[in-house]
């Protein structure tokens, strides 16, 4: 047991940026080369990946498992719907703003209570809160459309006051890609910042972090809020892509999928959740063609095998390199 890893795994920033650029170019080119179905699929992977990445701030960096991300995602959807249905002409940026405010507000509310609890109790309380949001949205038919949800027309892609145009699938893909890249770089920077290092210290040893002078609860509340904001952004993008907001997306099953994306892709890497989302969605797509509605059985078996044999996830082996 004397194996000490090489003292310094010299983070080769060059390799990282080459990889970043290659993946970026592939994603930019996707709508130009893929048939319409797969083009739409690629956009969806980005949206679900963004949601999973938002959850990674908590799971991977702060050591808190949230089962409440469906609520933040769903409130992003309904926030966007509110902006698009009440304000004329419908504005893309107002939809983003409304969605972020709704999701961020809900996240602070949930965090205020849930961060008093730790570990599994935190996870359960986020689940309970998200189900409360689900029940409210499901039953408050006059406002939320209840079971049927809300439908609306897609806003135009616009630079306010300068230019606007209808979304095509390709421009929508690039719009989502732009949002995702900006979000990723922002979250990456936050996780490397002094604030982000405090979150990782909480993950490593919460009582010790408290003892050296950090008000741990405050950091957790801000972490949940940030996470909720990016989850809300994913909800806004999904709502605009599909032109609806539906209660199904507030249901806790979505939160479970988000955790699975993280575990499959690699927690604490930020890019892992995207890989996990892509892998899971491709698996579901492929398997449902053979197994129809029973596709979850093989998916479950594959997931179990991965947890046993690749516990750190698809990109977990890159974890130290991705967190210089």
């Amino acid at each position, binding site marked *: 047991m004397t194996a000490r890893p090489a003292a310094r795994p010299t983070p080769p920033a060059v390799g990282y940026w080459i990889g970043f650029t290659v993946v970026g170019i592939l994603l930019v080119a996707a709508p130009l080369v893929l048939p319409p179905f797969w083009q739409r699929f690629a956009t969806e992977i980005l949206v679900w990946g963004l949601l999973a990445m938002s959850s990674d701030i908590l799971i991977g960096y702060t050591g808190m498992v949230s089962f409440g991300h469906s609520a933040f995602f769903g409130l992003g959807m309904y926030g966007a719907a509110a902006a698009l249905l009440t304000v004329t002409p419908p504005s893309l940026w107002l939809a983003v703003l409304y969605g972020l405010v709704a999701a961020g507000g809900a996240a602070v509310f949930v965090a205020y209570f849930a961060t008093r609890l730790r570990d599994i109790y935190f996870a359960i309380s986020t689940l309970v809160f998200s189900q409360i949001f689900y029940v409210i949205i499901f039953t408050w038919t006059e406002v939320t459309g209840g079971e049927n949800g809300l439908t609306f027309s897609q806003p135009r892609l616009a630079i306010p006051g300068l230019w606007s145009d209808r979304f095509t699938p390709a421009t929508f893909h690039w719009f989502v890609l732009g949002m995702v890249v900006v979000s990723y770089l922002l979250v990456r920077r*936050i996780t490397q910042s*002094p604030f982000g290092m405090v979150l990782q210290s909480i993950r490593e040893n919460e009582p010790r972090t408290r003892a050296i002078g950090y008000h741990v609860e405050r950091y957790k509340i801000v972490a949940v809020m940030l996470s909720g904001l990016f989850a809300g952004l994913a909800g806004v993008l999904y709502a605009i892509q599909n032109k609806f907001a539906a209660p199904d997306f507030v249901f806790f099953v979505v939160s479970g999928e988000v955790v699975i994306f993280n575990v499959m892709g690699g927690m604490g890497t930020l890019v892992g959740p995207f890989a996990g989302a892509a892998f899971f969605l491709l698996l579901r797509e492929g398997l449902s063609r053979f197994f129809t509605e029973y596709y979850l059985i093989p998916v479950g078996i594959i997931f179990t095998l991965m947890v046993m044999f690749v516990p750190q996830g698809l990109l977990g082996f890159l974890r130290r390199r991705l967190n210089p």
Partner: protein
Amino acid sequence: MATHTRRRSERPGEPGALLDPLQGVPTLTAPLSILKTEGLTVRFGGLAALNNVSLTVPAGEIRGIIGPNGAGKSTFFNCLTGVLRPTSGRIIFNGEDIAGLPPHTISRKAIARSYQITNILPGATVLENVRIASQSRHHNWSMLRHHRAYADVIDSARAVLADVGLAGKEEELAANLSHGEQRNLEIGIALATEPKLLCLDEPTAGMSVAETHATVDLIRRIARDLTILIVEHDMEVVMGLARTITVLNYGEVLADGTPAEIQANPRVQEVYLKT
């Protein structure tokens, strides 16, 4: 070493802290007390883990706290650092009652501790363990710059690592250090929060003879700038370091005095012979 001296001299009142830790307060002939507990009591149900403990620690002193297992030494530290809320009594630190304040607030009042059971961030590097503690006093809410952009925090962390003899191990994972090195890292983390009072809970526990010697030297060195409370089972260590020793037994102060007085005290001998 340059940063090391700078950091020291930035602390207020050194080296005159022995006489005057509270700037602006008239110096008395006797050293001012930095810590004073009055009737400190902690009850767990019917059991009094601490019973009416009153003691006064002058600034700049190394105070040893000894006693058999279960005497309340760790409970005493837990009260001082906010982990436990005392049932009754006051803890006056620097003229302010800090009893019942939460740990992070007490840390900001400049009380730090090391733990009996090593309590570090095992998955982080040695430097990061100390850097995060230094950072708790500077820029801790900054979100948009890389943490390595704050050279002041890193410099003071490196200076602390040099102090505790871990220079050159900065990039090792803390989990990979030897036991003795981890114990010193533990002291380094506490020092990095720039404390005025440092509580050491069995700093030499489980150390080899050589490591113990090095740690005793280390404690002597850092004691020039600090008041230190030290709980220790190794009598040689505590008798050599402490100017005054307080003996706890069943949660009560049994005796108080210089090492020589304590060794000669028949009640203390009785307690230690019995157990």
